[in-house]
C-alpha cells in the first residue's frame, strides 16, 4: 500500500481522508486548483478550520490593540477561510493582504503568521515551488517592514528576529513541496495498484471463462440432444432440468465475468437522447419511402459502433457532417435515377465506427450501363450534384471514396473521419475492448 505523507497520514488515521464519499481527497497536488468543492476535501477543511479557530480566538479573546487591528484580523480571517473554496487565487490574495497589513499596522498575534505559513505551504503543494517563492517575497517584505516599524509586536519579540521567521517560512515552503511530490507519487502508485487490480480481475474473469463457460455450454447442448432422443418421460424431464440449470448457471457466470471485467452496462441506456444512429435512421427511412413509392425496394442499415451523441468533432465538425449527409442524399438520388425497379434493387450500410463513418452501397447495374468501365463516366453520371464533386470534398476532409463494379454489381464506398488529423483523438495503442 502506498505510504501517506505528513498531515495526510494523520488524516488517514483519523479516517477523514480518502473515503468512498471523497475519493479525490489527495489529488490537488500540483493541479493548480482555482475552485474546489470544500466538502470533497475534508482534510483541507479540517486544517484550515483549525488554524482559523486559533486566529479567531486570538483576535477575540487576547488583547491585541485597537479596533483597526481587530478589523484587519477579521478581514484576514475571511480571506483565509476562502482558501477552502478558491485555493490558488485566495492564497495569492492572502499573501498580498498580509504583506500590506504588515507594512501599515502592527499585528500583535501569531495567528496570522501561522495561517500565512500554512497558506504558503499549501500554495506550493497545489502549484509549484516557484509560485510559492513568488508569493513568499511580499510576505517576507511585510515581515521585515513590520519588524522595522513595529518592533514591539509580540510575535516579533517572541521569535527574536525577522531572519528566524524567514528561515521558518522557507522551511514551510520546502515542506509543501515535499508533501506535493509525495502526494503525486502516491497518486501514481494508487493508479498503478488500481490498474493491477483490474488486470487481475480480468485475468480471473478469463480463467473462469476458459474453465467454466465452455463446458457449461456443452452440457446444455448435450442435454438438449438427449431430450430430443430420449423416449422415456422421466429421463426427458431429468435432461430438461439439467439443461435448464446449466443455462441458468451459465447466465450467472456471465454476470460474474461482466462484474470482474468491469464491463460497462448498456452503451445506449434507455431514454438516452437521440444519437446519430437515430438521426440517420430517420433520414434513410424517408428516402426508403420515396424509393418504394417509385417501385424500388432494397435494404438500408445504420450500424452504430460508436455510441457518442455527436461523433464529429473539431472545428470543421459541421462541415464533415454536412458532407456526410450530402453524400447519403447523393447516393439515394443516384439509386432513384439509375436503379432497376423491383425487389433487392439496392443494398446500403452506414457504419458509425470508432474513428470514422463508412458508407457502402451496392446495386445491380442496369444492362444499358454495363458497357462503361470508365471511372470518369461513373463519376459524372447525371443526377444529383455528381459523385466527382463529392469525392473531391470527401478527400479534402481526409476521407476516401471509391466506385466500381464487382460481379455485375455497382459498388460505392465512402469513409469520412470524424475529425481532421489535428483534432483526432489519440487512441491508446494497447486498449483492448
Amino acid at each position, binding site marked *: 500500500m502506498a505510504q501517506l505523507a505528513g498531515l495526510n497520514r494523520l488524516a488517514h488515521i483519523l479516517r477523514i481522508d480518502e473515503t468512498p464519499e471523497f475519493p479525490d481527497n489527495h489529488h490537488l497536488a500540483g493541479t493548480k486548483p482555482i475552485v474546489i468543492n470544500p466538502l470533497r476535501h475534508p482534510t483541507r477543511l479540517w486544517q484550515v478550520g483549525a488554524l482559523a479557530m486559533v486566529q479567531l480566538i486570538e483576535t477575540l479573546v487576547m488583547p491585541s490593540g485597537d479596533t483597526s487591528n481587530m478589523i484587519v484580523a477579521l478581514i484576514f480571517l475571511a480571506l483565509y477561510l476562502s482558501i477552502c473554496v478558491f485555493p490558488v487565487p485566495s492564497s495569492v490574495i492572502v499573501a498580498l493582504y498580509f504583506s500590506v497589513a504588515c507594512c501599515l499596522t502592527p499585528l500583535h498575534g501569531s495567528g496570522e503568521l501561522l495561517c500565512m505559513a500554512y497558506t504558503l505551504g499549501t500554495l506550493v503543494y497545489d502549484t509549484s515551488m516557484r509560485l510559492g517563492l513568488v508569493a513568499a517575497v511580499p510576505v517576507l517584505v511585510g515581515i521585515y517592514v513590520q519588524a522595522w516599524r513595529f518592533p514591539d509586536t509580540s510575535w516579533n519579540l517572541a521569535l527574536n528576529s525577522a531572519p528566524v521567521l524567514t528561515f521558518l517560512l522557507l522551511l514551510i515552503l520546502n515542506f509543501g513541496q515535499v508533501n506535493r511530490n509525495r502526494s503525486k507519487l502516491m497518486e501514481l502508485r494508487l493508479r498503478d495498484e488500481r490498474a493491477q487490480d483490474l488486470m487481475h480481475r480480468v485475468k480471473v474473469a478469463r480463467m473462469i471463462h476458459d474453465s467454466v463457460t465452455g463446458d457449461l455450454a456443452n452440457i446444455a447442448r448435450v442435454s438438449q440432444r438427449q431430450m430430443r432422443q430420449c423416449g422415456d418421460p422421466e429421463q426427458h424431464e431429468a435432461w430438461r432440468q439439467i439443461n435448464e440449470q446449466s443455462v441458468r448457471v451459465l447466465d450467472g457466470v456471465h454476470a460474474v465475468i461482466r462484474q470482474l471485467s468491469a464491463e460497462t452496462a448498456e452503451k445506449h441506456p434507455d431514454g438516452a437522447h437521440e444519437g446519430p444512429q437515430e438521426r440517420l435512421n430517420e433520414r434513410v427511412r424517408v428516402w426508403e419511402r420515396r424509393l418504394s413509392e417509385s417501385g424500388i425496394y432494397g435494404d438500408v442499415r445504420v450500424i452504430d459502433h460508436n455510441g457518442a451523441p455527436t461523433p464529429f468533432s473539431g472545428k470543421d465538425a459541421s462541415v464533415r457532417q454536412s458532407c456526410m449527409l450530402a453524400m447519403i442524399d447523393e447516393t439515394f438520388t443516384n439509386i432513384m435515377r439509375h436503379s432497376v425497379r423491383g425487389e433487392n434493387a439496392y443494398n446500403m450500410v452506414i457504419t458509425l465506427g470508432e474513428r470514422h463513418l463508412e458508407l457502402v452501397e451496392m446495386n445491380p447495374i442496369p444492362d444499358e450501363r454495363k458497357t462503361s468501365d470508365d471511372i470518369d463516366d461513373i463519376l459524372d453520371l447525371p443526377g444529383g450534384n455528381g459523385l466527382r464533386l463529392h469525392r473531391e470534398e470527401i478527400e479534402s476532409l481526409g476521407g476516401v471514396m471509391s466506385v466500381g463494379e464487382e460481379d455485375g454489381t455497382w459498388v460505392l464506398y465512402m469513409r469520412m473521419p470524424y475529425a481532421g488529423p489535428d483534432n483526432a483523438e489519440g*487512441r491508446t495503442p494497447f486498449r483492448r*475492448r
Partner: protein
Amino acid sequence: MNREITVGIVDNDRFVLPSLKASIEELSDDMQVIWTTSDGGQAVSNCLTAATRPKVLLADMSMEGVSGISVCRRIRTRIGKVGILAMTAYSIDRYAEKASLAGAQGIVGKSDDQQIVTAIRTIASGGTWGDGFEIALTAHVRLKNQTSANAVLTDREFEVMDSFAAGMSIQAIAETLNITPETVKKHGQRAMHKLGANSRWQAVAMWLNSQA
C-alpha cells in the same frame, strides 16, 4: 433431401466440434457439416478455397492463437461469399460488436442448438442474425477498402501480429504456431517493414488501429 447448406465449424474446444456437427445434422434436413477444425488458419484456408468453401462458417470467438475475430476479418477482407456466424460461450454482448466490425453476419451463444441451426439457415439465405450486422457482400467491401495492411501481410505475418497484439512473448508465439523463435522474429520484422513501423510496439499500435 439434398443437404444444400454446407457448414464449416472452427473451435478449439475438442468436445464442441463432434457434438455440434451431430446436433446440426440431426436438427436439420438441409444442412451438412463438410469440415471441422480447431485451427483458425486452416479454417481461413478452407473458406478461401473454392473446393472446400462452405456456405456458412461457424466460428468460435475465443480461440487461442488465431482468434475467431481474426478468422472473420481475414476471410471477409478477401471474399464476400461465405456467411460467417460467430459463436461464443461468453455473453453475446462481449463479442457482438467486434464480430460485426470483423465482417460476421451474426452471433449466437453456444448453449442452444436450435438457435444455432436457425441462425445458420438465416445467414445461408443471405440474411443476418441479430442487430448491428450486415450482409457478407457489404462487409467485404467495407473491410477491403479499410486498410491496405490486410491485403499486404501474409497469413503467417497476420498470425504473428495478432499474437503480438494479444501480448504474447516471442517464445509463446513460437510454441503456439509451432515455429522457431527466430522465424517469429523474421515474420514480425517483415510485418513491421510492410506496415512502415520503426519498432515492434509501433507496429502493434498500427496493427491494432488497422483492426479497429
